[in-house]
């Protein structure tokens, strides 16, 4: 126990640095996947058959295969198979590859949530707006948007919480996020080796962060509770 207390400051420092990388991947994924998901959603709802079929095929493949495999393919395929290592080396390259894989993967999940939200607004809402002389854009902004958001928030909250934990998968391409940082104390790092507790300890970081997110998202959900 006293050994752990002794190691604590060093370990916390390293875990904090790792968690910063975790947070970076988390936010970059959200910022990329929110809009890309919307584009994919419109693609799959398109009345132009080839586009909607192609989009649905992509979504099927991405949702049907493990994110871990997608990470490996996106990171290694260009360099090993095409002899064109587009990601460059080092931590920056790994981060770019991981972000790309996460954005594509999460955009596909988000697109299905958006689609549900958009199609879940009853057709009667649009018709009521039309007979009241509203334009299509007024109907979207003044009537449908908030109803869509209300439908989207709960399933989106689930995905966001899952994303926090999924960032750990980027360990497979050696991105130096928090799991990587925790694990390094087993092999030896910062003068500490053979310590497994830092790896276990990373769980607290996820737990606290998800606790904060759950509170915030719950608040948003509650804000939209005034109508049904």
């Amino acid at each position, binding site marked *: 126990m006293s050994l752990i207390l002794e190691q604590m400051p060093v370990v916390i420092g390293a875990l904090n640095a790792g968690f910063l990388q975790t947070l970076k991947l988390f936010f970059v994924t959200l910022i990329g996947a929110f809009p890309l998901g919307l584009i994919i959603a419109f693609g799959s709802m398109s009345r132009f058959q080839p586009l909607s079929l192609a989009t649905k095929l992509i979504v099927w493949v991405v949702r049907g295969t493990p994110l871990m495999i997608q990470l490996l393919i996106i990171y290694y395929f260009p360099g090993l198979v095409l002899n064109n290592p587009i990601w460059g080396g080092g931590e920056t390259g790994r981060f770019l590859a991981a972000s790309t894989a996460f954005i594509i993967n999460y955009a596909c999940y988000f697109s299905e949530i958006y689609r549900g939200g958009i199609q879940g607004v*009853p057709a009667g809402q649009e018709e*009521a707006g039309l007979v009241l002389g509203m334009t299509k854009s007024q109907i979207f902004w003044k009537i449908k948007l908030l109803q869509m958001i209300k439908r989207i928030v709960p399933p989106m909250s689930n995905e966001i919480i899952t994303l926090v934990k999924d960032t750990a998968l980027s360990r497979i391409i050696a991105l130096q996020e928090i799991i990587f940082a925790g694990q390094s104390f087993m092999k030896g790092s910062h003068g500490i080796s053979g310590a497994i507790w830092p790896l276990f300890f990373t769980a607290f970081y996820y737990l606290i962060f998800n606790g904060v997110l759950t509170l915030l998202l719950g608040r948003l959900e509650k804000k939209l509770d005034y*109508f*049904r």
Partner: protein
Amino acid sequence: MPILEAENICKTFDRTEVLKHIDLSLEKGQVLSIIGSSGSGKTTLLRCLNFLERPDKGIIRVNGETLFDAGDPATQSEASIRKKRLHFGLVFQSFNLFPQYTAMENVMLARRLLAAEQPDFKARKKEIYEEIEVQAKTLLEQMGLSNRRDNYPHQLSGGQCQRVAIARALALKPDILCFDEPTSALDPELTGEVLKVIRELADKNTTMIIVTHEMSFARDVASHVIFMDDGTIVEQGDPMEVFGNPKEERTKQFLSHY
């Protein structure tokens, strides 16, 4: 001159003829009831008049002005249709109130948006908004909902929702107010309060077209009745005649259920 004339309206969905050469005319201040079994084309006819469906053939005129002519693409641009819709109001079977707005806001929203298109809007915004608010309050009072102004739709009963929807349609002062089975989603008690409001509108000579399954109401309130079956007008005339002494076999058969 009739306020509304519809000529030879035809509409087909996937090879099913839903409306077959419908002719219709309505005088200002008249109440027209359309009755008939489900699937006879009543609702589609109303939706055509409100441009929610586009007739395959036919002409729609209001106050002598041709609003829609299936043979003339110039009458069919999206922007012009939006303005033309304002001649009609439509009250839906399922109310279709906007859930995120209060009763007042539901009634005011469309007028506020339209007001923003007026050239003097910026200069008179406050005045215009006040006027819209006064009108909305008056309408809700007329509907017996003064104490419900700030309630959201989910806090209102079905009958109250439908009365808000009527106020919302009236706010734009349509030439012709259309009702699509306005009480079909309500229990008998709530039906009564909605019918009472429609009756009051009829007493004030509001021009209305009412698609309904409430036969006694149609007989009492209408100045003209149309019985539709299989996309055609089978019989029409004075309500006393149509209900009391139907001439067509199909009408007799239909009315025998009531």
